[in-house]
């Protein structure tokens, strides 16, 4: 099925796929697409029973999620985001959770953009209102009059004529069955267990004049689902954000993308295709998808204090120099320490890992130069056990701790799928059913499924 929205154009570093609201269509995002052109590529996706797919009979939540996954699998490449408006927000959460569990043939999800989203839990909705809306489709499609009522109830101020006309048309062509499916079932489903907690960059836009899904309500509905959510209220705005506030929403999205999404390395296209394919088990894909999520620029350290984390980042830059967009491996080590994960042992001279990190960093801090050019020499002396620093750890222990720290830092770097691609390691793609390993083991040869970047030439027929 083609994606109906034709407004996407130009080459932008990231694509935002958007799922529309009840009674709307992909076209409801046209204005966002125009405004974001050149910064973010916006693609709306029509959902079953709506827009160009109004004739589709099955509009259940499961079918809708499957439909979105299929659309994304056909189109999403490189780094991309997913988002949704109202009903589309709940579906976006379900799709994102599936992607991050590795249960979809998708990699590259880097953030969510939600506009007045319906939450994973049952949507708070006045029962009288639900009944009234259901009555609009009792005898067939929504009438023009009821559509007008709907728009009036969901906007802070009348829409401009062009947007108004388009919204009316979308409402009237909506499949009555799809309208009912959402109001009677989809909105009531409790998907919070399935969606779980998704720790990725999330922007939540909500209107101050919206009711149950407005700016005041959203943090309570979503903060536990999306711990990184950035909530942006839009003044004098009702429920129909993409139609009511395209300029403001576009600016918020552009800022969000620049600040939180376009960070860290991107997995090369042929490696992403391999990761998405059936040689990779869901669990492995899920693990790698989580690791590929952009780091939280505002990461609040859980084991170290901010000064210690800053110093660890500066050490990380020297121990594991990253020449492209960098992974915040120091923050990842802090999180690892907070989870209590080590490597099963430590040198008997050192205190437990979290304490060793704090003590080691505090020791080095006493002599750490502000001039980056001289840091390498200071670190070298510390690694070699000859540091002059005087603090909680003596020079011998600083050396031992730095061995652990170097190891933790490089392992965090290497665990990222972009690093694996860089090193030419494709051993994660030895899954599937039945499990497939390697047929070609020889020097200088690779198999036809392997990315060219692993090096070597594809073996001719004699390999297998």
């Amino acid at each position, binding site marked *: 099925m083609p994606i109906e929205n034709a407004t996407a154009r130009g080459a932008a570093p990231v694509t935002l796929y958007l799922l529309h609201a009840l009674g709307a269509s992909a076209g409801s995002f046209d204005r966002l697409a125009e405004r974001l052109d050149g910064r973010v590529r916006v693609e709306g996706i029509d959902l079953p029973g709506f827009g160009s797919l109004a004739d589709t009979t099955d509009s259940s939540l499961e079918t809708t999620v499957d439909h979105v996954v299929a659309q994304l699998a056909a189109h999403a490449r490189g780094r991309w985001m997913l988002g949704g408006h109202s009903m589309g927000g709940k579906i976006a959460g379900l799709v994102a959770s599936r992607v991050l569990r590795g249960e979809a043939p998708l990699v590259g999800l880097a953030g969510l953009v939600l506009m007045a989203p319906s939450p994973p839990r049952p949507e708070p909705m006045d029962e009288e209102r639900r009944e009234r809306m259901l009555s609009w489709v009792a005898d067939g499609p929504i009438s023009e009059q009821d559509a007008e009522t709907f728009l009036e109830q969901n906007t802070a101020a009348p829409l401009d004529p062009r947007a108004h006309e388009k919204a009316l048309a979308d409402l009237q062509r909506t499949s009555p069955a799809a309208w009912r499916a959402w109001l009677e079932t989809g909105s009531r489903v409790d998907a919070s267990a399935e969606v779980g907690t998704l720790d990725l960059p999330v922007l939540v836009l909500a209107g101050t004049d919206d009711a149950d899904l407005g700016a005041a309500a959203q943090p309570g509905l979503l903060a536990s689902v999306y711990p990184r959510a950035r909530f942006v209220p839009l003044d004098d705005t009702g429920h129909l954000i993409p139609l009511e506030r395209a300029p403001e929403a576009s600016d918020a999205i552009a800022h969000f993308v620049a600040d939180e999404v376009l960070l860290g390395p991107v997995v090369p296209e042929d490696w992403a295709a391999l990761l998405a394919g059936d040689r990779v*088990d869901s*669990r*492995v894909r899920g*693990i*790698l998808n989580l690791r590929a999520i952009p780091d939280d620029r505002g990461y609040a350290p859980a084991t170290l204090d901010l000064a210690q984390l800053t110093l660890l980042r500066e050490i990380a830059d*020297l*121990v*594991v*120099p990253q020449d492209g967009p960098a992974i915040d491996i120091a923050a990842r080590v802090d999180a690892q320490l907070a989870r209590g*994960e*080590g*490597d*099963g*042992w*430590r*040198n*008997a*001279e050192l205190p*437990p890992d979290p304490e060793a990190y704090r003590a080691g960093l505090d020791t080095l801090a006493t002599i750490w130069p502000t001039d980056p050019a001289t840091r*390498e020499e200071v670190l070298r002396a510390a*690694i070699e056990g000859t540091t002059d620093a005087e603090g909680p750890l003596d020079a011998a222990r600083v050396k031992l701790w730095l*061995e652990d720290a*170097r*190891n933790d830092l*490089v*392992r965090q770097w*290497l*665990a990222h799928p972009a690093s*694996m691609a*860089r*090193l*030419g*390691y494709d*051993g*994660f793609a*030895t*899954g599937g059913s*039945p*499990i*497939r*390993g*390697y*047929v*070609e*083991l*020889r*020097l*200088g040869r*690779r198999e036809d499924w392997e990315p060219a970047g*692993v*090096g*070597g030439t594809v073996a001719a027929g004699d390999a297998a």
Partner: protein
Amino acid sequence: MNLDAMRTFPTDEIVDVVVVGTGAGGAPLTAELAKKGLSVVAIEAGRHFALDDLTPDETAAVEINWMSERLSGGDDPTTFGPNNSGRGVGGSMLHWGAFTPRPDRRDLTLRTETGEGRDWPVDPDELLAYVERVEGDIGVSGPTPYPWDPSRRYAYAPAKRNAPANLVAKGCDALGVTWADAPAAVLTRARLQDHHGERGACVNCGECHQGCRVDAKASTANTYLPAAVAAGAEIRAEAMVHAIELDARGHVAAVVYHQNGVDVRQRCRSLVLAGGGVETPRLLLHTGLANANGQVGRNFLAHGATQVWGRFDEPVRGHRGYPSSLISEDMMRPADADFAGGYLVQSLGVMPLTFSTTLVRGGGLWGPELMQRLEQSRFMAGIGINAECLPSDDNRLELASETDEFGIPRARVSFTAGANEKALDQHATAFMLRVMEAAGARETMVLARTAHTIGTCRMSVDPSDGVVDADGRSHEIPNLWICDNSVFPSAIAANPALTIMALSLRTADRFLSSAA
């Protein structure tokens, strides 16, 4: 392993035997005793893993390793965790490398031969007969004939040679060193395993250390444990033994383990400890048992496992295929040796995180040089050793003041390579450099490493000089037995698992004849 039909025993029943640990030490004995009609409960600290639970991702795969912290000291602190310590039903055989050289009979009589180290109080012929039985039980692949033992037969053709193996072979050929495809407990054709079902053939994924997902690699979880369960043994997983109770005579009467948040007591007539070279002595030191002579924890042994990596012009990509698919036993007694014992040589492929750890810890690398070596890693092939280690009273396991999540003091292991280990390592390093240069390496890199956790509860004929007798029975407590690599009097150069399993079958027989 399907445990649905497993027989279970009430905890107030006095079972014949409790076995602590389900790895190479505990499982064969559990199966043997159960087959003879004894009531046996095997208690395992880790969880039961289905094949689908295993993952090739190195970071996530540590769930099959013993990750609860151990402290390591001495001049050459040995690495634990994924390097050598397993946790789960199947023990370290979930993560082991499946490299299965047979123990060399000369290593078992090293003292007689050289005046160094220890002789094993075990008849080499008897042990080797058990070794052959184990090979049949678990399925071992390897070359026939085997160059260093022409009478030997392997039931399965060798694992496919990978690029590092071919390069090391080239280097060996140039130097006139004999090499062969390595004996490996990895099936090269499917096999119907008794009481378990079909085990698949190796798919050359290279991820043995992350746990075999096709059951081609033997572990006790796909061999002895299903046989034990079929014979009526019970396996209790996720149960951490932390106390041993004695009766008025000073005999073991029960063990106490922590499971699902509560302490459970299991009464027993005999106790067999099979937790390995760290957990077995830790439990004995913690309970204060079987240690009147102060021998528990002494003589910790670690194999020298130095690696040499060579960089080649073409991509090697040694993460493909069975990692150590070539062996040479030529260095078991080198003519120019200035040390006792010898070392086995193997080719090496490696997974990236494991390699990066060796670069950092063994090579001391960081910064641009570290990144350069990682970038080059796909062009690197390795060669490594497993080297004899002589017992030393300075190398020992003790309890730290710090406790673990169960309130048991953590193990603190101190290890310093002695003169013999150093001389051996020097010889081996020079040899490996020659091989890699002869193989055409553009440059080479030496990475220091040790492997395996051995010793600490050694067998001895003289009761003052060890923890257990030549049968594996405690010198002090007559119904306490130890059956794992902690009883090894010396390290011997062969990788330990095959020998541990052979010893386990032997201990089972000794146990049965002692009871008869």
